C-alpha cells in the first residue's frame, strides 16, 4: 500500500528535480558556532519567555512525543518544530519570505493496530507560513501549530490528508531543566551544549481524525525544548535517546552519544525525575545501554537497535533496574525528505526485564544510523 501511495504522489507532484535545491541550501556552509550565541553557565532561564524562540541561537526545537488511547486503540505520536538559524545574507529578511530562519517540522503517527506509520515533513522559510514567537511559546509551520494558552499547550497537526490531530496538553509536573549549571553538555567544547527544558509529563486530551473517523483520544505526552548552536561534537555520529514515563509517576530521560570509533561519549547522560521533579543525574559510566533487537529499514537500509536494554540503578532504593524498551511496531522510521535526515522515532512499552512486567511507556529516538546527522547539526 505504501508503494502505491508513493507512486500516485509522485505522479501528481513530479517535483523531485527540485529536491536538490534544498541541498543547495543545506549544503551551504552554515555559520560557525562563534557567530551564534551559545548556552552560558549560570544563565537563568525565565518563563514563559524562554518557552519562546531564541533566534540568536542556531538550532532550536520543540519536541513533543506521546501515547494516546481511544478505547481499545492505542497510538504513538510525534510533533516536532525545528528552527534552523541561517547565516546573515545579502538580502535582508523580508517579512513574508525570510532568509534568516528556516523552520523544519515533523509529524508522525504510529498506529500499531494497522501497523501504519504515518509521517510528514515540512520545511519553510521564516515568513508568512512558518515562524516562532520570541517571548512565549507560539510556533507554526503551515497548518501545524503549537502554542501556550495559560497553563496549557495546544497542538494542531496533520499528516497529509491521512490524519489530523488536535490536542490540549496540561502539565502534570512543572518543567525541568537538564544539565549542570543549567546547560546540557554534549561534548568537551563548550559550544556543543544546550539549554534543555522539558515537560516530562503532560496530560493529553483531544481528537484524532483518522480514516474519516474522529476519535476522542487521551493519554500522556512529553515535551523537550532545546536551544543550542551545536548539538554534537566533531567525534559524535548520532545518538540514542529515550524518555520513559513510569506508571509510578517517575520518569527517565537518557541518551547515549555514539562516537566515530563505535564507542559511547562520556557526555552521555541519564536522568531520573522523581514525582516531585527532583532529578538524579547518572553519568555515562554508571548506566548501560545495550543495542539490541536490530531492525533493518527497507527504505534507507539503516539497521536500528529498536529494542535496547537499559541498565541503571534506581535512585529510590539503589536497586539495579534492567529496563527493556519494546517498540509498538518496528517501522517507525522518519525518512528524511527536504530536511534530508532519516531517523527512528517510535513509541515503546517499557518492560522490567527481571519481573517481566510492563512498568511504563517510552519514546525512543535513534539518529545517525541512516546518515551522518552530525554534519547537519554540528
Amino acid at each position, binding site marked *: 500500500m*505504501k508503494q502505491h*501511495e*508513493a*507512486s500516485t*504522489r*509522485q505522479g*501528481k*507532484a*513530479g*517535483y*523531485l*528535480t*527540485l*529536491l*536538490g*535545491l*534544498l*541541498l*543547495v*541550501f543545506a*549544503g*551551504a*556552509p552554515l555559520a560557525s558556532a562563534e557567530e551564534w550565541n551559545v548556552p552560558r553557565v549560570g544563565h537563568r532561564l525565565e518563563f514563559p519567555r524562554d518557552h519562546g524562540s531564541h533566534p540568536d541561537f542556531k538550532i532550536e526545537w520543540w519536541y513533543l512525543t506521546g501515547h494516546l488511547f481511544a478505547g481499545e486503540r492505542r497510538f504513538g505520536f510525534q510533533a516536532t518544530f525545528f528552527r534552523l538559524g*541561517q*547565516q546573515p*545574507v*545579502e*538580502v535582508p529578511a*523580508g517579512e*513574508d*519570505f525570510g*532568509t534568516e530562519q*528556516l523552520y523544519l517540522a515533523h509529524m508522525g503517527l504510529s498506529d500499531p493496530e494497522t501497523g501504519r506509520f504515518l509521517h*510528514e*515533513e*515540512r*520545511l*519553510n*522559510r521564516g515568513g*508568512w*507560513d512558518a515562524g516562532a514567537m520570541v517571548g512565549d511559546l507560539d510556533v507554526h509551520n*503551515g*497548518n501545524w501549530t503549537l502554542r501556550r494558552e495559560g497553563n496549557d499547550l495546544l497542538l*494542531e497537526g*496533520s*499528516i*497529509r*490528508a*491521512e*490524519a*489530523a490531530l*488536535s490536542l490540549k496538553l496540561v502539565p502534570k509536573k512543572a518543567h525541568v531543566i537538564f544539565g549542570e549549571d543549567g546547560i546540557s553538555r554534549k561534548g568537551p567544547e563548550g559550544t556543543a551544549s544546550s539549554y534543555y527544558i522539558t515537560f516530562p509529563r503532560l496530560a493529553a486530551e483531544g481528537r484524532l*481524525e483518522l*480514516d*474519516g473517523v474522529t476519535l476522542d483520544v487521551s493519554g500522556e505526552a512529553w515535551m523537550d525544548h532545546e536551544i543550542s548552536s551545536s548539538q554534537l561534537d566533531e567525534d559524535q555520529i548520532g545518538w540514542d535517546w529515550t524518555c520513559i514515563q513510569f506508571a509510578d509517576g517517575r520518569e527517565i530521560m537518557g541518551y547515549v552519544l555514539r562516537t566515530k570509533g563505535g564507542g559511547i561519549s562520556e557526555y552521555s547522560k541519564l536522568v531520573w525525575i522523581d514525582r516531585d521533579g527532583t532529578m538524579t543525574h547518572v553519568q555515562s559510566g554508571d548506566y548501560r545501554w545495550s543495542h539490541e533487537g536490530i531492525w533493518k529499514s527497507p527504505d534507507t537500509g539503516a539497521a536500528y537497535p529498536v529494542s535496547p536494554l537499559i541498565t541503571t540503578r534506581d535512585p529510590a532504593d539503589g536497586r539495579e533496574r534492567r529496563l527493556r524498551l519494546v517498540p509498538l511496531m518496528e517501522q517507525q522510521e522518519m*525518512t*528524511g*525528505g*527536504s*530536511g534530508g535526515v532519516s531517523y527512528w522515532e517510535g513509541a515503546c512499552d517499557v518492560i522490567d526485564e527481571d519481573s517481566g512486567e510492563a512498568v511504563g511507556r517510552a519514546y525512543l529516538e535513534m539518529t545517525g544510523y541512516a546518515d551522518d546527522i552530525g554534519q547537519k547539526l554540528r
Partner: protein
Amino acid sequence: MSVPSPSSRPASIGGVLWSRLIWRHWKREPALTATLAGILALGVAVFLAVRLANKAAVSGFGLFTESISGESDLLLRPRSGFFETSVLRDLREISGKRPVDFFPVLELSGAVQTGAEKPDGDLLRFVGVDLVAIGNAIGQSEEAGEGVGFSAEEGEPGLLGVTDACLVGEAFARARGVAKDDRLRVWINDRVADLRIAGILPDPANRPAIPENLVLMDLPALQKVSGETGRISRIEIRFPEGKAEGGIRAAASEGLAAWAQERGHLLETPEDRKASVTRMSAAFRLNLTILSGLALLVGIYLIMQAMEAAVTKRRGEIAILRSLGVTPDQIRRTWLTEAAVLGLVGGVLGIVLGRLLAEGLVGGIAATVNTLYYETTTDAVRLHPGEAAFSLVFGLIASLVAGWIPAREAALTPPSQALRQGAQGGGLVWLRRWPVGLVLFAAAVGVARLPALTFGEGTNFPLGGYLAALLAVLGASVFLGGLFPPFARLIGWGRGEAMRRYAASRLRAVGGRHRLTAAGLSVAIGMSAAMAILVASFEKTLTSWIGQLLKADLYVAAPGSASVANGNRLAEVDWRALLSLPGIDGADTLQRHAVTYEGRELLIGGAAYHDDPSRHLQLLWIEAPAVIGPDALETGGAWVSEPFARRYAKRSGDRLTLPTPSGPREVTIEGVYADYGNEAGTVLVSRRLAEEWFDDRSVSNLAIYTSPGVDPEAVLESIRGRFPALVTRTNEKLREESIRIFHQTFAVTYALEAIAVVIAVAGLGLALAGLLLERRNELATLRALGATRRDIARAAMWEGLGIALAGLAGGLAVSFFLGWILIGVINPQSFGWTLRYAVPWGMFVFLSGVTLATAALVAWTVGYRNANLKSDREE
C-alpha cells in the same frame, strides 16, 4: 476441385473478386496504386501534422510551474494586476487547521541580450517561487530520494538570500549555449540584472519539459530584481493526498471560493485556466485545421477520378463476373473494400509522415500564437494516439467517400454489357450538369449570410462561412465541366499542328475523369487563391493602418513588447527621465494591464497623447467618437478595439464594467477603433484614469516625437545609452518589424496551400497516365501512322493543359467568392477584424503560370513515358 460449402461461399467469392478485380490491377500498376496511397497519405499527414503541431505549440501557454512542480489543484489569481504577499496570511487563516499548501508565484516577462541580430533580445519568462516551500510536496512523497538531478557542492554560494541566482532548464542551456555558473544579462521591466546560473534543471521524466525560455528564481529575489516588491502573480493551491482528501478539498475549496468571490479574485482549476487561455487562439487554430483538410479534399477528387478510371477499365471483367452470377452488391462491396484498403494504407503512411511534418510546423504556429495571443511554450511534438486514430478515420472516410460513386457505378454494370474496353460511359452524372454548379453557388451565397454560432465567453464560430466555402468549392468543381468545350476550341484553334487538334478533340468529349481531375485542381487553386486574397487584403489594411498609426519618430517599449502577453513596464521615474532627454518634443504614452473580463483576457490601456494637435496618435476608426483630439479621452470615456466590440457586441454609447484592482469601474464607450495588433480586445481610457484604477504610474510604450530639426537617430542613441534595457526603434524599423511579424503569422498557411497545389498537379499527372493507358490501342495506331514519341508527349501536354486551364479557371473564379467569405464572413466573425478587399493580381498570374507550366511539364512527361505502350491486342 471440391465444392465449396455454402457457408464459405461468400467469403471465397469475396476473395476471388478481390484478387480478380483489385489485386491483379494493383500488381500490374504499382506506380498508380502507390501514387493514390501517397496522395491519401499526404492528405492525412497534413491534417494530422497541423493538429499535432497545434497541440504542441500551445501546450505551455504560461503555467510554467507545471513542469517544475507538477500540477496544482487550484489556481488563485487577481482579475487584474498582482496580489500583495499579505494575502497569503489571510489564506492560511481562512483555511484554519486544514492541510492546504499555498505556493505563491511571481511570473514576469523579460529578455536576455543574446547578440546584435536580435535587438529585442530573446523573450524570457521569469518565474519566482519560494524555493524552500516548493520542496514540501517532495516531503510528502515517500520516494523522495529519487530523481534528484541537481545539487550544489559544499561551499558554493546558495540560491537563497542572494538576488542574482537563477536556474534554467536543459533546453535553455542548449539553446543559448550556457552552462552552470555562467552569467546572464537580462532585462526585466526597465531594469537590467546580471544573473548567475546556479544550476541547470534536468527535465522531469513524466511532465512537460521545462520550457526553453524559463528562468526560475527564488521569489523574493525576483521581486527585488524586477522591482515588484511584495507582489505575486498568482497562488497555486494543493491539497494533500490521503483518505480525507475529498473532504479537505471540498471544505477548503468552499472557503477559498467564498473568499475569492468576495474580493473579485479568480479561483479555477488548471484545466479551466488552460481551456480559457487556449480558447483565445481557438479561432486561429481552427482555421488552420480546416485549411489542413484542404489537401485531403483535393485528394478525394483525385481518388474518385482514379477509381472511376478503374471502373471503366475493368468494366469488361465486371460484366463477365455479373454474367457468372456475382451480385451488384458483391461488386460494390469489393470496390468499397479497395477504397478502404487504400485509405488504410494511405492513412498509416500519413500518420508517420504527419508526425514528421508536425515538427516543422510547431515553430510557425507557436510564433503566431506568441505574437497575437499569449505567451506560449512549445512542447515536443508527440504522436497522440487519439489524434492518430482520428486522422486515420478521417482519411478512411475521405477514401470511402471518394470510392462510393465509382463503386455504385461498378455495381450498376449490366451483365450483358458489350465488352468494349475504354468505354466513355460512366462518369458522374451530376458532374456533367454544369448548371448544378450554379445552384450550389446560389446556396453558398445564401448560407454565407447566416450569423456566427456563439459559444460562451465570446467565442464565435462562423459555421455559415465554412459551409458556404464548401458549397462554393463543390459548385465550382461541377460548373467547370461546362468550361471544357470552350477550352477545347481554344486549344484546337486555327489550323495548328495535328497533335494539338487531337488533344482538343479529346477535350471536347471529356469524361468524368477529366472533370474530377480539373475539380481537384480547382479546389486547390481556389482555396490557395482565396487565401492569397485574404493575405493581400490583410496586408493592404495593415499597411494603411500602420501608416495611420505610426506617426511618431521613435518608439520605446519595455523588452518583449513584440508579444501581446508581455507585461513589462517602465517605472515612472524612468520614463519621465527619458522624456526629459534633449531633442524630445513630446510623446504618446500607454500603459497596459491584462485583466480577466467575462472569462477572457482583455487589455485595458491607459493613453495620454502628445498635446500637439497635429502630432499625436491617430487611430483608424470603425465608429468615430464625437470628439477626436489629444484630450478626447480625458473626459472619462473609453474607446474599444474592433475585436472587443465584435466579440461582446458592443458599440458607442454602451456602458462597460471593468474589473480593476480598485474594484469594478464603469465607463461609456465613445468610439470603436480598428486594431489588428491583438485579438484579445482592448479598452482604451485616459492614462490618468488607468493610473488611478491600477495605482500604477508606469507605462509600457512610448511614441516619441522629436523636436523639429533633430535627427531621430541621435535621440535614439542617447536613449539607448541611458536605458539599455529598453527596446527603442525608429518609425521605419517598427514598420519593417510589423510587416515581418505579419508575414511570419501566415508562413504556415503558405505551406499548407503549396502542399494542396502540389497534390493537385500530381493528380493531373496520375489522371493523364490513366487516360493514356486506356487509349493505348489508339496510341499504337497513332505510332503506326508515324507519330513520334515526342508527338504523343505533346498531345498529352495539350490535353493536360486543357484540364489545368479548366481547373485554374474554375479555381480562380471561385477564389473571388471564397476570398469574400474569408474577409467578409469568417474573419469578422472569428477574429473581429474588418479588412479591405484586395486582389493580388500579380500573385494570381504567378500561380496560374506555375500551375500551367507544371501541368504541361507533368503531362508531357507522362505522355512521353507512356508513348511506347503496347496495344493490348499485342499483349
